[in-house]
């Protein structure tokens, strides 16, 4: 049994201006101890999916239309508020993109970490303080800094503190939403390295949300590529990187300037991401796709297994035409 299994999850935001179809029937699973990279550009629905898992979609305007989120076999969408609170921060915890705003500016860093420990272990304040100082040491911050306020920390240190907070209760699943995007590249390397080590140490699984294929290559075991609220390609890391099949995935790889090869011109995907409030019919990517044929503009396209454990949402790939 997978640790987390998402079936046909659909999340929309219903506003006066129209319905934003953020997530449209995604299926994915994360095995215990593995890291899944969820890759996509702005507005692909990555963060909404993550918040959906934790039951933190703001309602209204958010609305879960359909689907199942099975965590250790139990459907989180059917869980009570109290049950969800027991899971959040304890079994599943989350690291957010912007460390500058993720910490409460008027509470001491140590107290913010102790808080989650007290909430889930019910231990005394003194024990929690001791444990939170230990967590800070683990992420490379001296224990006496626990009494500092967030504004006294640098960006990298804040993110380390957020990670300490997320890992304080040894979660089974860690969701990291662009954890290093706001950091400089040398700090990013430090933080990623540390996250990898801690994850292995604790035996947690991780859902890593990112737009950076480089980070995926270095961190993940499996990869899911998201486009316009759908997963267009999913499979083991090696399969996706050695044998990318979906035209969008190929386009992403073509857009990145390479450090190894000399490419004079990049091969970007033409056009723009469709407006999630006004998605095209048929394959969501067909308007930007070089291989699109007339059929692509209508009907629905299903994920299709092209090789063992490698799924692609493209009719022409499924038909063996490209």
């Amino acid at each position, binding site marked *: 049994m997978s640790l987390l299994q998402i079936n046909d999850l659909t999340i929309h935001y219903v506003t006066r201006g129209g319905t934003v179809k953020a997530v449209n029937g995604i299926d994915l699973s994360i095995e215990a101890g593995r890291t899944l990279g969820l890759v996509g550009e702005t507005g692909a629905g990555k963060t909404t999916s993550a918040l959906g898992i934790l039951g933190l979609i703001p309602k209204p305007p958010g609305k879960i239309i359909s689907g199942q989120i099975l965590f250790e076999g139990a459907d989180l969408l059917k869980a009570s508020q109290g049950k969800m609170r027991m899971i959040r921060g304890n079994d599943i915890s989350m690291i957010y993109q912007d460390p500058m705003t993720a910490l409460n500016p008027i509470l001491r860093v140590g107290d913010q970490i102790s808080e989650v420990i007290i909430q889930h272990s019910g231990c005394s304040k003194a024990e929690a303080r001791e444990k939170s100082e230990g967590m800070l040491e683990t992420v490379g911050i001296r224990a006496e800094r626990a009494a500092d306020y967030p504004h006294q920390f640098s960006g990298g240190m804040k993110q380390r503190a957020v990670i300490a907070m997320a890992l304080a209760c040894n979660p089974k699943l860690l969701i990291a939403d662009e954890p290093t995007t706001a950091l400089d*590249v040398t*700090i990013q390397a430090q933080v990623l390295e540390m996250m990898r080590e801690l994850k292995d140490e604790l035996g947690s699984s991780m859902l890593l949300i990112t*737009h950076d294929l480089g980070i*995926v290559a*270095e961190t993940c075991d499996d990869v899911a590529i998201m486009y316009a609220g759908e997963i267009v390609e999913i499979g083991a890391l090696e399969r996706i*990187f050695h044998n990318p099949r979906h035209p969008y995935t190929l386009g992403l790889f073509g*857009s990145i300037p390479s450090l*190894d090869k000399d490419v004079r011109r990049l091969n970007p995907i033409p056009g723009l*991401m469709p407006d999630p409030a006004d998605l095209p019919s048929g394959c969501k990517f067909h308007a930007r796709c070089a291989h699109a044929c007339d059929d692509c503009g209508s009907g629905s396209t299903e994920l299709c297994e092209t090789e063992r454990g490698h799924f692609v949402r493209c009719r022409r790939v499924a038909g063996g035409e490209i």
Partner: protein
Amino acid sequence: MGELLRAEHLKKYFKTPSGVLHAVDDISFSIDSGDTLGVVGESGCGKSTLGRVILKLIEPTDGRIIFEGRDITRVTDKENIELRRKMQIIFQDPYSSLNPRMSVMDLIADPLKTFRLQSSADRRKKVFELMDMVGLSRRFASSYPHELDGGRRQRIGVARALALEPTFIVCDEPVSALDVSIQAQILNLLQDLQEQQGLTYIFVTHDLSVVKHISTDILVMYTGIMVEKCEAKELFAKPMHPYTKGLLSAIPVPNIDRVREKVALRGELTSPVEPKPECRFVARCPFATDICRREPPTYSEVLAGHFVSCHNVREINGL
């Protein structure tokens, strides 16, 4: 082609409540016409300030800027404004760099109006030409920036910079706010424009893969100083300064077969407020020795065309 711009010992210091900030400290380089100089570094290294000092948007504290053979360091306001026709800038944030109350037409025409160039009908024609040139559909002429996406906004910024037909453009992180697929479109556009119009760029960025792709030469900055400068290819093949090595090994590469030398850098960048007389990189350097703590290194040509400022550069690289 010949030299277009040269900077000599350029310095920019800011007074802050906690002391003097050496944002740009003794930077020298020269760019040939038609080339691109990439300036890379982490946030707070002074790269954006350098771009603005060269454009004279910020007055340098010390040093000289020579543009087209003329010293433009100390010029009158009038000459400074005349310089705008030759030197332009493209900004990082396509949201805040466009006046929200002006239409696309007005935004692109604004530089032309400032210099009272052309009749109004010609100006309109010129704006449409510029829009074609940057790949912005003419139907957006009366749109407002907030109605457009980041990529299109950045195209407006490019068109505005090109309106006065400059020879030299500072690109200040022009693609960092964009998604990868849009980023690639803009990078291609900038390259095409450079080829068509013989533009010279200073390309300021923190993204090493972008800078490698677009630059002829690369200048690596760290806390206001230049640590290494050489041809783009050489920098990636033979990085010599420990900071450059660390920076290169820190980039996540989307290639799972590549095995790389790892140089881990400790700690974080500190801001150059009242720097001590030592190598500014010493606290993070895995190769630091006593001399690094005693005096700042000099910037010297280690190989032909390859400048490094490090006391131990020869020992580290086995030269």
